């Protein structure tokens, strides 16, 4: 019995992971009611855990869950959650019959993602919404990743789902003319999820590390469903380049290792090759975009593993193009760093000064770290010390803080 139980639980969990988003997407494709679909599905999973240990795991667990959830969702709509969680004998028979007919689920996940990242949904909640609706993350886990109170995150998600239902936000892939702009929202949300996971470089926090993995998973999904979209391929390439370097970002003692000092032998060659191939495929389409440019910059950085040298002038050109596209202050900082490598500290500092006109950079750690490094190169010790102090005070990661501290102390020697 115990073993049976574990097996049933494992089967339910495997089905959950693999098909959660598919089931949610399918259920709410017509009703537009994400919350009701999630409720129905969670009841279906509860029913599965109650029934499978006794009766065995059905041959096609996904179809079984689907049928029960669909019946539940009709129930839920009819009675608005007055339905009991227990399953009648008849319902169960019906579920098994349906599951045996062998119908395959159409994959509506892309439509669900477009709904989650719709312009009518607050940009800040798009990534959390996607993580919940497509991957089944709970509000508390999402809240931690995005540094938001769990109760507030829960409310935002509920509000967004209500909006999808009540504002009649469409489910589905938009038409050709609308696609580029709308796809942008989807890709941005995926990248936001990935970046939240990426910001835990040591990978000590499982929740966050898995978020980077989930971002890649979503990126793969979009790239496989829209294989002709260069930006979808570009984003996946970008995430894979970053992921490939994960192991090299920390020394054996958990110390932070900057990109320039990373041991290229620790980079994941398989992921890099996959990313390069994606980038080539994207380039063939002949329309450049933000993610392709960022991936190309990553590609220029990893080229070091063969030549041992980084082509900084080429990276500056890529940043020029990126700055022209986005005008983001973060891009301006990165561009200044690349420029300093290509033309010297003075040129970089001039660029940083220009970028600093954007007040948002005042609280941006990499701006201060870059400034400190360039000031130190120029021999301006006192100003470098102050800039390092600011960078240290703005950093959230203990290992990076230690690294900046060491750089700061080195100034005094």
């Amino acid at each position, binding site marked *: 019995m115990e073993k049976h139980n574990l097996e049933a639980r494992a089967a339910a969990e495997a089905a959950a992971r693999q098909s959660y988003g598919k089931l949610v997407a399918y259920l709410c494709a017509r009703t537009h009611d994400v919350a009701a679909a999630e409720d129905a599905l969670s009841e279906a999973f509860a029913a599965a855990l109650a029934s499978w240990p006794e009766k065995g795991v059905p041959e096609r667990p996904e179809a079984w869950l689907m049928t029960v959830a669909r019946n539940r969702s009709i129930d839920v709509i009819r009675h608005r959650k007055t339905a009991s969680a227990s399953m009648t004998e008849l319902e169960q028979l019906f579920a098994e019959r349906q599951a045996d007919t062998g119908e395959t689920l159409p994959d509506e996940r892309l439509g669900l993602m477009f709904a989650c990242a719709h312009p009518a949904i607050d940009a800040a909640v798009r990534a959390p919404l996607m993580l919940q609706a497509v991957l089944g993350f709970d509000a508390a886990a999402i809240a931690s990743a995005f*540094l938001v109170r769990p109760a*507030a995150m829960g409310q935002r998600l509920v509000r967004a789902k209500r909006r999808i239902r009540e504002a009649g936000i469409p489910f589905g892939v938009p038409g050709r003319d609308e696609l580029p702009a709308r796809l942008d929202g989807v890709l941005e949300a995926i990248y936001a999820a990935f970046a939240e996971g990426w910001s835990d470089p040591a990978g000590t926090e499982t929740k966050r590390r898995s978020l980077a993995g989930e971002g890649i998973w979503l990126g793969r999904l979009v790239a496989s469903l829209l294989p002709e979209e260069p930006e979808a391929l570009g984003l996946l390439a970008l995430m894979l380049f970053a992921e490939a370097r994960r192991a090299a970002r920390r020394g054996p003692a958990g110390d932070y290792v900057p990109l320039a000092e990373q041991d290229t032998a620790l980079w994941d060659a398989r992921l890099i090759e996959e990313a390069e191939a994606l980038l080539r495929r994207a380039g063939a389409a002949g329309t450049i975009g933000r993610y392709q440019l960022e991936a190309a910059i990553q590609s220029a950085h990893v080229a070091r593993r063969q030549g041992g040298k980084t082509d900084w002038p080429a990276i500056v050109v890529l940043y020029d193009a990126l700055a022209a596209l986005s005008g983001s202050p973060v891009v301006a900082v990165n561009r200044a760093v690349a420029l300093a490598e290509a033309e010297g500290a003075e040129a970089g500092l001039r660029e940083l000064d220009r970028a600093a006109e954007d007040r948002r950079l*005042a609280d941006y750690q990499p701006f201060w770290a870059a400034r400190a490094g360039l000031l130190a190169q120029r021999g301006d010790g006192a100003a470098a010390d102050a800039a390092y102090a*600011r960078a240290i*005070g*703005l950093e*959230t990661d*203990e290992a990076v803080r230690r690294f900046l*501290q060491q750089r*700061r102390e080195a100034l005094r020697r």
Partner: protein
Amino acid sequence: MKYMLCIYVDESAQPAAAVDAPHQMSPAFAAYVEALRESGILVGGDRLKPTETATTLRVVDGEAQVLDGPYADTKEQLAGYLVIDVPDIDSALSWAARCPGASRGTLEVRPIWE
């Protein structure tokens, strides 16, 4: 809005303070406070002496009871606080995440009645 960041740490796990200057903040902490100040959001804050110096008092039936030690004997103890003035809780949380105390202990973020 003003928020109080209460910094709780495990005193026994703290790095031994410099013998000659036990009142000094660690460089990382000093940098953090400096960043708060530079951003114009720091209202105030203090570092507290260890709980072995704490005294607890309450009046029961009109009689004062004074005890040695902290209010609650928990593993992590209040080690200091900062008051910051920021637009909202999200901003308060992002500043709390930068506090070195958050990597070593726990930060409680509480809005202040105004």
